């Protein structure tokens, strides 16, 4: 069973503003801002993956795994469909640590036919932030496009995820691989 962290209010505010930027203005759909060039239609979902702290348990690469926090499902090995991922993110997973991220889930919106009272002890934890339906679709699209079925994480994927000066990706370098090759070869991201 996993435990999910809370978010500083500032992070939630930031998330709301990012989400608002990405989804409420059609002209700038998918985060077409100066900061994030619109190279990939799933960039918005990637932002949700970070900001909603999916990375806190599933990690940046989605492989999850056992550890202090329990055993987060591998999204690389998952057989869930887009719709099933949307359902899991929105409603959480009963009897596991996977939180629900849909505002009003188990209250206004019955999940699997259950409200809070019906779910009782099976009630999954509440996510650190709530996501709008479009955020949930975006993060599902991102998981389908970049994570599901992707095999073991690669340097190229890592660089594509972080796109920063962090050394977080160095461990994925193969012996002959140099950083400049990896940027050109973004693998599944194409």
């Amino acid at each position, binding site marked *: *069973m996993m*435990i999910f*962290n*809370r*978010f*500083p*209010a500032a*992070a939630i505010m930031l998330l709301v503003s990012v989400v608002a930027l990405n989804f409420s203005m059609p002209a700038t759909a998918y985060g077409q801002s100066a900061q994030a060039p619109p190279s990939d239609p799933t960039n918005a979902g990637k932002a949700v993956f970070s900001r909603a*702290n999916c*990375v*806190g*348990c599933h*990690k*940046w690469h989605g*492989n999850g*795994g*056992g*550890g*202090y*926090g*329990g*055993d987060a499902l591998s999204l690389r090995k998952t057989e869930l469909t887009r719709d099933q991922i949307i359902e899991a993110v929105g409603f959480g997973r009963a009897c596991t*640590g996977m939180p629900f991220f849909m505002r009003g889930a188990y209250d206004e919106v019955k999940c699997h036919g259950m409200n809070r009272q019906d779910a009782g002890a099976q009630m999954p934890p509440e996510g*650190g932030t709530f996501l709008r339906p479009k955020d949930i679709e975006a993060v599902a699209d991102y998981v389908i496009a970049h994570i599901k079925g992707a095999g073991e994480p690669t340097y190229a994927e890592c660089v594509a995820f*972080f796109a*920063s*000066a*962090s*050394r*977080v990706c*160095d*461990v994925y370098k193969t012996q002959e691989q140099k950083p400049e090759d990896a940027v050109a070869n973004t693998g599944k991201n194409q």
Partner: protein
Amino acid sequence: MERFSGHSRIFARARLLAVAVAAGGMMAALPVSAADQVNQERLLNVDKEPGNWLHHHQNYSAHRFSSLKEVNRDNVKNLKVAWTMHLGGIEGGGIWSHGGLEGTPIAENGFLYVTDGWGWVYKIDAHGGRGMLVWKMDPKTDRDWAGAVACCGVDNRGVALWGDLVISHTLDGRLIATNKETGQVAWQRTVADPDKGEVITGAPLIVKNMAITGVAGAEYGIRGWIAATDLTTQKEVWRTHTIPGKGEPGSDTWKDSNNAATAGGGSTWVTGTYDPATDTIIWGTGNPGPDWDNAYRPGDNLYTDSSLALDATTGKIKWHYQHTPNDPYDYDSVAENVLVDIPGPSGPRKLALEADRNGFAYAIDRTTGKFVWGLPFVKKVTWTKGLDAETGKPIEYDPNKPVQTYIASVTPSRTNLETDICPGNMGGKNWPPTAYNPDLKLWYIPVIESCNRIKVEVMTPEKLKPREFWTGGGPSQPFKITGSVTAIDVTTGKIAGKMETPFPNLGGILATPDLVFTGQPSGEVTALDAKSLQKLWEFNTGGGVNAPPMTFTVDGKQYVAILVGLGGASDKWFIDSTPELKKIQPGSMLYVFAL
């Protein structure tokens, strides 16, 4: 580094004070400006400058005891906030959504040196009854790199002083020397490697011109070590691995065919102690990896879960005492060893005290490494019936058994894949430091009263990957965790008092002649009577206390300081055991109290 101007007058006054101190004879042989320079002589004689707090653990023996008594049991009820300062460092990184504050401020001649969770160093001028930021040093920690392999939070427990330098660590593995006056980085050196799952959260220990560094990462398949860096040449003097290499003494306690020792854990992330009489560093070591699948690594797994005595000059291991052989519980012995001398039948007994994650407090003869006494300091222990009176080993320990099962019905194993265990893997007692009152001979333990549920994952060598968890299972938290401050009479080895608290003690303890200061993750800072442990004063900081209190003077007036900002392991992995704490906001604030 950011420099703040407008302090020349205050600096001048500090120097005048320094001159006065030097003229008083304490350091008459040194140049005038050297009063602000920290050297081995001062570090050995901190009792001569009680208004300062020069060591992470207050003195080389980790007493965390101050002889200051302007604030005492008669007037502590009048203690009030003197000033506060907002710090930074709550940003997320890696798998962490926010950092926390676990540091102990260092105080010297009216200036404080504190760190936040990401290792920023702040120099604060505490003269005149208020705090003014003099400078801050941004170590530019690689947050995603380090935060992804920090098992237990974005934490930094503080700095040390040496010469005109402030010595600090960063989560991403560096030792940094910062000029004390200017806040400029003088030099830095990479000591640990996050690519191998190594990070640093502890404060450095300064011994004879060396900075001693410990490492975290036993949940990520590291092979632990303690390293000494020469602060003049900036070169490594020695590095002693806590897991022996092939053929070295102790390597026969790794009997597997998995090559488990190479990723065997034994981290060293809590600052140790130093006994100048024998030139010995005493340092605790953490759990073996994988944490909960001990059948992967048959044998006692030396030197995990041990107190290690090292020759300070060479790093050579002099003795070891292992608390939980072939540990299947994640019962680190990484805690500080408190050095205490008590009268004995044939002269003074030189003890090393350690309060373990496994729920037992130990006194070891620090000359020989032999067990003297041990007792449970938590209310509930289910994994063993107790300690052998001779050896101090758990009664069920069988040196002929490759895989220990202790009380098998509750012990995580390949045949007991899900089980409830007490203490849980938080402890017992975790990193928050104990304190020792040498007048009363009372040792105060910040206690975590916990049980939790362990699910075992059977590990294979293919599952060992760089920068990925290597735990062999994981805990969940169906049981409420509470805490206490428990006092042990060191002359008898018996519990002398217990003050129970609604939440685990995640901050640690400060002792003064007749008081004990501590805090709660629900926000309260409290002062207790040193003998009765009765609560005499309390202030709610409105944040979560996750750091130890300390005390110092400025211009003769006593202050009590504590960092407030809930982070660390408990706030993420164990929060379901204390659901009331979910509402505590992450924060980053220094509180300073005075009469």
